[in-house]
């Protein structure tokens, strides 16, 4: 029995070996190389000449006030975009899950932001947000909500909100699709039974539907969080991390250090911090997942 199991294990290892080797080459090596760079003073101008500097890049980073601001901004951006995308995605999924005329058209249309290239989205929103000629200011002043040009991308108090708005608009269709698939796996009979027992719409949602798709939401939150830490193009094209670092997330800081200031070592140190943050999020996810699995088992 044991030797049979060993043979199966060996076969399994052979089966997954190509994938493991591929991942080691295209993921593992760059990660290790990045970690190594973070302990050196490598410059973009001469990446093959570097000196080991120990923890100097990390101590320099954490001694900077601006890096602490960057960490806070990253947290705000990641939290805001994940909550926004999940809530809006859930609302869209609930709508799309219902039966109504034109449902197929709505499902197709809701995907448009997800399918639009990020560069195009950023350029369009730069125009929408333009203080003097943007359609947003025009619309808001037409109905008397604002007086004069609001600097959506250049006011430090508004820039993060504006960037979050664009991000959520861009990514919520992904949440909607994932959650729609999950909603369709919730047995309709459970919801019907709840309604027969007198439960109303919101109660059905919170007591039956949401618990039914809880695991999907958790996975979705995990992915969206990690992607938020890595999102670059939208923020860079909209604000380049400004004004006054108001939208300066980790990855924007990494790009500036690496490709504007040519300090690859420092950029790699920021990358390592981001990598550790991703691992932390994953650990939290597994902890929550395990706990809920245990609770489900007890129940």
């Amino acid at each position, binding site marked *: 029995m044991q030797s049979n199991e060993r043979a199966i294990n060996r076969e399994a290892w052979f089966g997954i070996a190509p994938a493991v080797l591929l991942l080691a080459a295209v993921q593992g090596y760059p990660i290790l190389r990045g970690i190594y760079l973070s302990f050196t003073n490598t410059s*973009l101008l001469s990446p093959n000449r570097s000196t080991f500097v120990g923890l100097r890049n990390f101590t320099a980073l954490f001694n900077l006030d601006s890096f602490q601001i960057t960490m806070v901004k990253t947290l705000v951006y990641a939290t805001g975009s994940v909550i926004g995308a999940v809530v809006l995605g859930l609302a869209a999924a609930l709508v799309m899950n219902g039966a109504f005329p034109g449902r197929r058209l709505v499902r197709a249309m809701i995907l448009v932001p997800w399918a639009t290239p990020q560069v195009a989205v950023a350029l369009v929103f730069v125009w929408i947000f333009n*203080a003097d000629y943007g359609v947003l200011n025009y619309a808001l002043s037409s109905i008397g909500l604002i007086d004069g*040009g609001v*600097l959506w*991308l250049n006011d*430090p108090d508004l820039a993060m909100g504006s960037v979050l708005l664009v991000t959520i608009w861009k990514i919520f269709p992904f949440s909607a699709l994932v959650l729609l698939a999950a909603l369709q796996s919730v047995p309709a009979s459970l919801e019907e039974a709840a309604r027969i027992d007198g439960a109303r719409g919101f109660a059905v949602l919170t007591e039956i539907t949401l618990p039914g798709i809880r695991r999907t939401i958790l996975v979705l939150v995990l992915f969206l969080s990690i992607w938020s830490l890595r999102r670059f193009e939208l923020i860079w094209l909209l604000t380049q991390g*400004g004004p006054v670092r108001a939208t300066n997330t980790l990855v924007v800081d990494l790009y500036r250090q690496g*490709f504007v200031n040519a300090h690859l070592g420092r950029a790699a140190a920021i990358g390592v911090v981001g990598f550790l943050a991703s691992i932390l999020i994953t650990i939290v996810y597994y902890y929550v997942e395990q706990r809920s699995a245990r609770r489900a088992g007890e129940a």
Partner: protein
Amino acid sequence: MSFRKFPYAAAIGLGIAGLLGPEWAAAQSASPVTIEFAAWQFTEKGRGEKLNALVDKFMQGHPDIKIEKVAVPYPQFEQTIFTQAGQGAGPDVFLLGDDAFPKAVNAGFFEPLGELMDLPSLNLTSVNEDAVIDGKQYGLVWGANTYNLIYNKELLSSIGAKVPASYEEFLDVAKRLQEKGVFAFAFRTTSAETAGMWYDVSNWVYGAGGRWAKDGQPEFDGPQVVEGVDRLANIYKSGYVPKGADAATYRRMFWEGKVAMFIDNLSLPGIIAAGNPDMRDKIGVARNPFQSGDHASLTTFIGINANSKNKKAAAEFMSYLFSQEGQLALYELLGGVSVGTKLDLSNNPLGGNAPWLGEMEAAIEAQRAVSTVPEGLAQKASELRTVMSEALEQVLFNGTSAQDAMKKAQEQAKAIAAE
């Protein structure tokens, strides 16, 4: 293929080659050498077409050299070149601004030109000496550009104003233009264009008599520097400028008659006239409205990549660019900006197409050009640029006083300079 069949295959191959004839064989042996030439002007309307035509003309006269045009937009140009050249690759011939050039030479990206080109025969201007490092000529001047006041003659005469010659006159004209419902002035007021912000604010700082650095020591909190930043902030806060505008936006607004004045490099009049021919006779160029008489300059150099495998062909292309024919074409392409050689302009290729030329030359004569590269800190220019841009953002968007913002910027600049 089995070894026995090999002679038959070889015979068939030779037979086909014989049928194709000697011309085919000659063409194969004389296939052109390919070199890459990177310039941001390829991406620009007006200048892009002219640069394409110039390169095509070279290839017509040199069938043994094929040039692949590498078009990278200006905001990404420096980073793209640094990334590629740092890896031992990159285009064979490329441009770089004077703020990035010393860094690139220091990193070994440029090949000395002395042994590749007959430099003494080129009739080079003295500005080319800026590209001599440790006695070696690493690049040649592509264009020596300066920043001057570009204005809409029609808008200024509509309020009965003459071109402002001082900051006080500028404020007066700006107020009257605002009353007419026109933006008096424009500069980059978006954090998405920090590199360009540096050039904009440099003119105001130099106009007030300030300098970014002296003998390798930053002077970001010098009184004249603070005054220049404060003046620019005052213009912004008074509502004389379109807020949140990038360069492309305000330049378009200028050619649509919505902005009356801006300070920019002297390639702009030609670009604007190409975008809107109706503007051609309305464009005026004058010295900046500041007493000091100092204005910012931006010299662009062209050189040969030290990693190039075809340096000889690259040098041949460079020699063509610095011939009288190539230089006249460049002069026209750059809209009358000084090129790298002393040109005979008896047959000015711009002719009547650039009615602003006379004013432009007078403006250049009346001012002293000062590089935007902090003196003695060329290797740190990009980091200092980031510090300055953030300080300007603090003043414009956060209400911080110019004094406080520049004091903090000075601390950061000193730390960078000391690294």
